[in-house]
């Protein structure tokens, strides 16, 4: 089920909210938790019921291993190794098997058939969560949770499919907190506001820029330098609003249920270095890799060379985690190298605005690699971006906006009344859109806006803005699109 679907907004969410608060109201706390887990499993199974077997199997095995690690301390190391390996094998089969076969075919000149396994939704996210749980149990940091609590934690629908990557100690104690079981107007208002902002970011901004990006990538064989840069910038905008919109929705939904999820974004395009960028972009992933990979590898405690190697390993794994393709490996390696560059302080730029500019350019270029379906597409896009071949394709790229209902009246009117001005109008439109996105990106992020709503004592104007956004979202529901991070 998608957050941006009618079935979720008008049926699932109201029913689950009513059920959760209703059961808690009558003191049926354990039943409420069971209800929440069942609802979350329904949410997950709605995509494809057979995925339920996989996620339930994974949860049961990981829970049993966590219990065993806590109980049999002498065998904890072996049990941890077994658990982590099992999780990696699971994700390996579903996510990387065909990639490994393609590498084997290329290197050994064989022609082994692919399995074409459909990636189960959220497997990358819930696998990391459970690896974190096993490691915490091994380290003695995990408390003794019941199976229902653990099930509710892993399957909690706001974060199940695309994060944020929540740790058990962050969420499970909130399930038990009696204050969270009573309907709280303030928390609900904050959550609802955050959810509407996230939904709007996804449906009104990300999908609009996504239209330009998809058109540009379809025309990768004809694209010129200016168009390639526009597509690259549009993709960085799309990806941010799509993924941060999803995270906002997750945090907002959790807030509506009385819970708090960790923040995943903190205005990443305001970063002044790559190091800074990763403290602002997909923060829960950065946290996971820092705690459960970088530090166990030795972190920065074993000399500079080892530190750089550890950074590179972390980013290569991060790249692979995002997808099974060489483009993701290259994207990860680029960021790893840029992080090392930052640490080495090569060519330190004095002015923050300038280093911020170079950071954004780097991120935009790296995201083009991230977006490319294969190496050929990547090379074509990079060639178009860095070897000048004109600007003549820009009007055609911008003309794709005429397909969108938002610009239909304007473009048809210009076409009928001033056909000679049509290209100029397309260029103006794309310029205005990019400028508007830049203004939004430089402004307050959604978490800050929600704080402002609270601090200003819930002003009427914000209620009207949010209602207008919700209205626009609802009329866009018939153009439902999936979230980009569902693919990772």
């Amino acid at each position, binding site marked *: 089920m998608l957050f941006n679907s*009618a079935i979720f907004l008008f049926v699932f969410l109201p029913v689950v909210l009513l059920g959760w608060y209703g059961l808690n109201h009558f003191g049926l706390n354990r039943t409420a938790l069971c209800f929440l887990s069942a609802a979350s499993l329904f949410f997950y199974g709605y995509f494809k019921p057979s995925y339920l077997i996989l996620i339930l199997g994974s949860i049961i095995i990981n829970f049993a291993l966590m219990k065993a690690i806590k109980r049999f301390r002498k065998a904890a190391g072996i049990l941890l190794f077994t658990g982590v390996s099992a999780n990696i094998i699971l994700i390996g089969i579903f996510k990387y098997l065909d990639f490994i076969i393609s590498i084997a075919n290329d290197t050994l000149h064989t022609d082994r058939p692919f399995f074409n396994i459909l990636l189960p939704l959220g497997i990358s996210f819930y696998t990391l969560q459970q690896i974190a749980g096993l490691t915490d149990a091994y380290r003695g940091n995990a408390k003794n949770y019941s199976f229902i609590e653990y099930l509710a934690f892993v399957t909690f629908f706001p974060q199940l499919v695309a994060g944020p990557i929540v740790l058990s100690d962050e969420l499970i104690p909130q399930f038990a907190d009696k204050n969270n079981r009573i309907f709280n*107007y*303030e928390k*609900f*208002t904050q959550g*609802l506001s955050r959810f509407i902002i996230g939904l709007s970011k996804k449906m009104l901004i990300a999908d609009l820029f996504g239209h330009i990006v998809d058109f540009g990538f379809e025309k990768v064989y004809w694209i010129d330098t200016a168009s390639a840069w526009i597509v690259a910038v549009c993709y960085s905008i799309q990806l941010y609003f799509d993924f941060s919109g999803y995270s906002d929705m997750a945090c907002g939904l959790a807030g509506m249920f009385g819970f708090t999820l960790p923040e995943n974004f903190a205005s990443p395009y305001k970063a002044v270095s790559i190091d800074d960028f990763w403290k602002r972009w997909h923060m829960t992933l950065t946290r996971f890799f820092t705690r459960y990979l970088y530090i166990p590898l030795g972190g920065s405690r074993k000399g500079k060379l080892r530190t750089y190697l550890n950074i590179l390993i972390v980013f290569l794994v991060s790249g692979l985690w995002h997808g099974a393709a060489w483009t993701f490996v290259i994207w990860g390696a680029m960021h790893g190298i840029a992080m090392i560059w930052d640490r080495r302080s090569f060519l330190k730029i004095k002015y923050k605005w300038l280093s911020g500019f170079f950071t954004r350019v780097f991120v935009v270029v790296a995201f083009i690699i991230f977006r490319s379906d294969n190496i050929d597409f990547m090379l074509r896009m990079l060639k178009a971006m860095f070897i000048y071949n004109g600007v003549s394709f820009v009007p055609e790229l911008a003309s794709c906006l005429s397909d969108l*209902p*938002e610009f*239909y*009246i304007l473009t*048809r009117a210009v076409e*009928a009344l001033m056909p000679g001005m049509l290209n100029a109008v397309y260029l103006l439109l794309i310029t205005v859109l990019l400028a508007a996105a830049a203004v939004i990106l430089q402004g307050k992020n959604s978490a800050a806006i929600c704080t402002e*709503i*609270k601090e200003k*004592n*819930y002003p*009427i104007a*914000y*209620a*009207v803005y*949010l*209602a*207008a956004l*919700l*209205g626009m979202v*609802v*009329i*866009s*529901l*018939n*153009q439902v699109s999936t979230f980009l991070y569902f693919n990772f």
Partner: protein
Amino acid sequence: MNTRDKSKKFIILLSICTVCFLAMPAFIVALFDPFYHYHAPLPGMKAVLEERDYEVAGTLDHFDYDAVLLGDSLVENTNTAVLSEYFDVTAVKAIRAGGSNADILFYLDRAYEKHDLKKVFYCIDKAVLVADTKVTFPKNDYYYLVDRNPINDWKYLWNKDVLLKKIPLQLAYNTVLDYNENEAYAWYSTKTFSKEAMMTHYEPESDFKEQQPVPDTFYENLALLKSEITAHPETEFYLFYPPVSMLWWDSELRAGNLDADLDIIRELSTAFEDCPNVKLYGFYNSDEYTQPDNYMDVVHFSPEINHEMYDDMKNDRYRMQADTIDEELYELREKVLAFSSEEITGYYPDATAYLQ
């Protein structure tokens, strides 16, 4: 007022504003109703019909008519004013893209629900007659415009495309742009009808497949059609097998379908003998109609052909006769064989490999 009360008031206000913001587009869509799901065009406004799958059900429910033109893309170019003039009826089109007898009869049933039909004109080409016999609408994403379930109407009432594209276009056609209401769904103005244009859509296969029998779906479709006709003796049915180009016959011969096509026509010629309310016409064997310059591809002909057919039907020409059908089909078969073995070089002079 404490923060709890303020946040409570905020939620109430947000809810009221949301209802208002949602009521506005729903009201506008219901008022202009560009797919005619709720009502006929507003007084003084033209019926703008451009997207058949979205509009036919609404048209059949709410428009004022006493005749229906049924069929697929072959009859879309019909000017319904011609039908009105020739047959003294008010006709609307019920077109199903790609053609499917079951879907077309679903439309016909829909028409009968609220209208008494004097005449039904049904273009029964091969695609229609051999199509699957199940109604396909429930599988379509626009089914909310076809069914009568008010719950899924939200997809129409709160729809950005309807609000920002269809309604402005409807208003533009009613004010600044030209629009002929009688040419609903017509596409001919963007196409070229010529031998050369037709040839760009066809390349003969070099081999000839073994001839296949008539598909079972034909007999099932025929039974469906007959039961519909017998259920409505008060309506006069004009069934017509449309013309096709010689290249289409050539393609059917090479694909192993020619004998089945001729058998279908033979079956048709006798199928409605016990239905006095049926007039059956066949334009498949007419040199006049198979002229290559009438076509944009191997089956789609110009609107002039549509109108000539109605003229011929009005004058009762090209009526299918069971007693002469064998002779007629023998002649047609010989003509197709001759075309595929000799005359096709008039189209593709260098293609000797294409000869039978």
